[in-house]
């Protein structure tokens, strides 16, 4: 009985993995150009499993971003840059979305995304000093989920920020989160940013930023953010950004871009067969031990 349970479980697992793998393909979308600018879907806040409490390896996040329809992302290790460098190397060597080497500078007083940097930035400094260091390295500084830790942002830091997360998965959890992010953004001159803060749950790019770049390169994205050419869709499809760019993005249907996760029959076969298969294997394991 135990043996047959485990065998059936194994067969179902094979079916689940085969069905899942069949639809696990990169999304190749034709390049989208608006008035001479490339419209790029970017996630500026992604964590990997390399000392950054993520579930995917630094090369795994590159493959996942490709499947979630992102043109670019910033690999942002917690107070570390190693993850970003590995992701960048992998994407450059084997292809995939553009990777901005980055870091999430985490302190009890502020969380700051540094994207497009070359060296690690220390966390034992003020937000103002950290932002200055990001700029010296040619990168952009983005306030990370500023509804949570903002005590470290003084007037200078607020003035110097390039971007601030206006769309973050927490807006789907707390009813006041969207307002908190908007209030923080109103204190700055920063361009709106949407980021998924991807660790392990849900798709990458759930919240994303449309950047209108002169070319599809890291420098093009950084220049686009500095020039405030970003559009973000928040709760209920509310658009944030320069009104002129919101209008252009609307005309191109960016608001209705496909969601990051498909729902094909194969996905459902993979889910159901996987859960039942795993359950049977677990039950078989219990039975084996009892014997």
């Amino acid at each position, binding site marked *: 009985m135990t043996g047959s349970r485990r065998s059936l479980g194994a067969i179902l697992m094979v079916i*689940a993995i085969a069905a899942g793998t069949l639809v696990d393909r990169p999304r190749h979308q034709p390049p989208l150009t608006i008035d001479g600018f490339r419209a790029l879907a970017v996630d500026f806040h992604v964590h990997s*499993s390399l*000392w950054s409490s993520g*579930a995917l390896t630094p090369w795994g996040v590159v493959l996942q971003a490709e499947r979630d329809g992102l043109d670019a992302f910033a690999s942002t290790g917690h107070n570390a840059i190693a993850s970003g460098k590995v992701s960048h190397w992998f994407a450059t060597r084997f292809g995939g979305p553009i990777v901005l080497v980055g870091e999430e500078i*985490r302190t009890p007083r502020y969380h700051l995304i540094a994207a497009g940097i070359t060296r690690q930035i220390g*966390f034992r400094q003020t937000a103002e000093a950290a932002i200055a260091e990001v700029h010296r390295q040619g990168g952009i500084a983005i306030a990370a989920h500023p509804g949570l830790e903002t005590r470290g942002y003084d007037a200078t830091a607020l003035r110097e920020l390039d971007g601030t997360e206006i769309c973050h998965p927490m807006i789907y959890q707390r009813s006041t989160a969207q307002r908190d992010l908007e209030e923080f953004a109103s204190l700055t001159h920063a361009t709106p940013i949407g980021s998924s803060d991807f660790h392990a*749950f*849900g798709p990458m790019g759930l919240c994303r930023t449309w950047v209108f770049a002169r070319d599809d390169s890291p420098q093009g994205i950084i220049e686009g953010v500095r020039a405030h050419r970003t559009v973000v869709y928040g709760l209920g499809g509310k658009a944030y950004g320069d009104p002129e760019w919101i209008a252009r993005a609307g005309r191109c249907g960016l608001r209705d871009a496909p969601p990051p996760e498909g729902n094909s029959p194969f996905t459902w076969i993979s889910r159901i067969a996987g*859960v039942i298969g795993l359950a049977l294997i677990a039950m078989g394991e219990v039975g084996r*031990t009892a014997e």
Partner: protein
Amino acid sequence: MWISGRLTIRLIADGAVSFVFVPFFTIASFALVYRLSNRPLRFTRAVDLFFAANPWLAWLVGFIALRCFLTPVRAAVMPRGLWLAVEVSFVTLLAWSAWRDWRFFRDVLQRPSTRATRDLLLQRAIAWSCALAWFQGPAAAGLLGGAR
């Protein structure tokens, strides 16, 4: 499964690499505790039994099953009530797992109750602190170290 809503070779292989530290630190800490006292079984057999019928597997199956019923948004940010239920089940799992492992040290490795308690605490302290340090990386230093 929680990432994309399906099982794929790519995600399974990647997850295996990402989380190899969990069995590594568990076995390393168990090896240390195993050497401290009675050793009625060979080490390989003891490891096999230590992992057998692990309640974590059952909990993980349940946790994965949840994903079938959640949209991508809800997978990224679970409703509060559901998250609370997950937390409660997790705490229950911790207690169950501790009880089961304490009995393993006492009954299978034939150690006195007090020694079984010490071994359990030592094994947990080593395995979990190492795993957390690896998983969190320099972030922990940032939150503890502080900034001006």
